[in-house]
């Protein structure tokens, strides 16, 4: 538990730093803006911290776009019918797809972000619990299937479980987005629209 709390604490620091890093990239001589979120002594390098701060900016912009579009739809009550849930989800999906017509893989998880994510995940998976964590993620996970940005998350595929230790190692996301895995790909799931906002290949260390 102590180990988990340490990771959670570091993650909060990371998220907080990320959330405030909306200015230009720090000069090279400054201390890194983002604390390394995993349970390692070494801090992120400046380029890595910058990559995470920029990722945070992009997902924040995505969440703002999501909220703006969702606000044009009738508000989904806290308790409603499957018909209303389905209609809301499909309508939001359509709006987001229209708004992000030109979206492609890597728009949110850019090559620089990908590199840092791989490092962060490699640290978690190479730890003593790595095998167990990977097992949890790959449990009932279908492996590689075709993915498209902005497409609906496949209905027949269960959501991967993402262990708390893995979540704590990655930057915090806005409420509308979640990290999930399909096979060895890390995806950003738009929860309300049930669509894939972006994904990266080879999230697990080789």
């Amino acid at each position: 538990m102590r180990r988990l709390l340490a990771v959670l604490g570091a993650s909060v620091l990371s998220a907080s730093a990320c959330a405030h890093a909306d200015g230009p990239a720090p000069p090279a001589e400054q201390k890194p803006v983002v604390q390394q979120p995993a349970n390692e002594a070494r801090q992120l390098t400046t380029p890595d911290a910058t990559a995470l701060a920029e990722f945070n900016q992009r997902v924040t912009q995505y969440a703002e776009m999501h909220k703006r579009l969702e606000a044009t739809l009738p508000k989904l009550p806290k308790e409603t019918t499957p018909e209303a849930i389905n209609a809301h989800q499909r309508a939001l999906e359509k709006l987001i797809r229209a708004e992000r017509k030109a979206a492609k893989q890597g728009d949110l998880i850019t090559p620089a972000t990908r590199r840092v994510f791989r490092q962060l995940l490699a640290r978690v998976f190479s730890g003593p619990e790595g095998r167990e964590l990977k097992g949890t993620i790959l449990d009932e996970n279908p492996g590689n299937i075709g993915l498209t940005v902005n497409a609906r998350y496949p209905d027949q595929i269960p959501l991967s479980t993402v262990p708390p230790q893995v979540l704590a190692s990655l930057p915090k996301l806005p409420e509308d987005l979640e990290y999930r895995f399909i096979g060895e790909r890390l995806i950003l799931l738009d929860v309300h629209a049930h669509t894939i906002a972006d994904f990266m290949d080879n999230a697990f260390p080789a």
Partner: protein
Amino acid sequence: MHRGRLSATVVFALLAILGCAQPQRGPVQVQGAQSPQQAAQVPVIALPNRPDSLKFAVLGDFGDGSSAQFQMAAEMARVHQRFPYELVITVGDNIYGSERPQDFQRKFEVPYKPLLDAGVKFYASLGNHDSREQRFYKLFNMEGELYYSFKGPKQNVKFIALESTYLVPEQIAWLQKELEGSREDWKIPFFHHPPYSSGGRHGSHLDHREALEPLFVKYNVSVVFTGHDHIYERTKPQQGIVYFVAGSGGKLRRGNLDSTTGITAASNATDRAFVVCEIDGDELFFNAISRTGAVIDSGVITRRK
């Protein structure tokens, strides 16, 4: 490992004859009927069915629309006629596969219609097969929340639904606050992934155990309900806490039990099962009941203080 069977009808009849037998009190926290033979020798501690007790059921891994699910649901309705539980907590995998409006009907509203018509409320937690938007579904009573708590309508009980596929740090902090601030005698977490399980397919989720168990221990949780493995299991107390895996409410992984874990107090992987519980004061009585109405496990848990 318990594979004994005792008809639910017989249990209810026995209780009626015995005038709702009083539970045995003693140092052992959990007592369960271990086999029909032992059950005949040891007084069965089943369901007292007292007027002011809190009665509820636990159901997991059920929403596949199969004939087995419908049969299980029919058995739940039959039990409800004799033992009028007020609510059902679900431990996830509420709707398998597609989640179109007609799926909610075929995989939930139709099979459980007798219970819904009788006013039984379902309180859902989400499993890995459930979309996040189920939280808005009126009949799951989640009020738009992925994790939430509610107070039982009787007795001094708080139920805490967790979202175990995505245990973000905020959720763990919320759980700590819920447990810390709770003045209820019983705090009952329910969620999908079992920290302890002898299921051969998934087994114990050690990552969840690491995150959750210290809080459960610290704040005197006595019993935890989970699913995910398509079996029934009740563990021996683990750090004082009894864990149930009630993951065969519709799905079943026949024979999928690891007999080497050493954690099992009772288990069954030969038929679907659900659990009915009754809380009266410091005691929680339980029966696990199969699709055919057999009581496959029963006992009483005394709450930790």
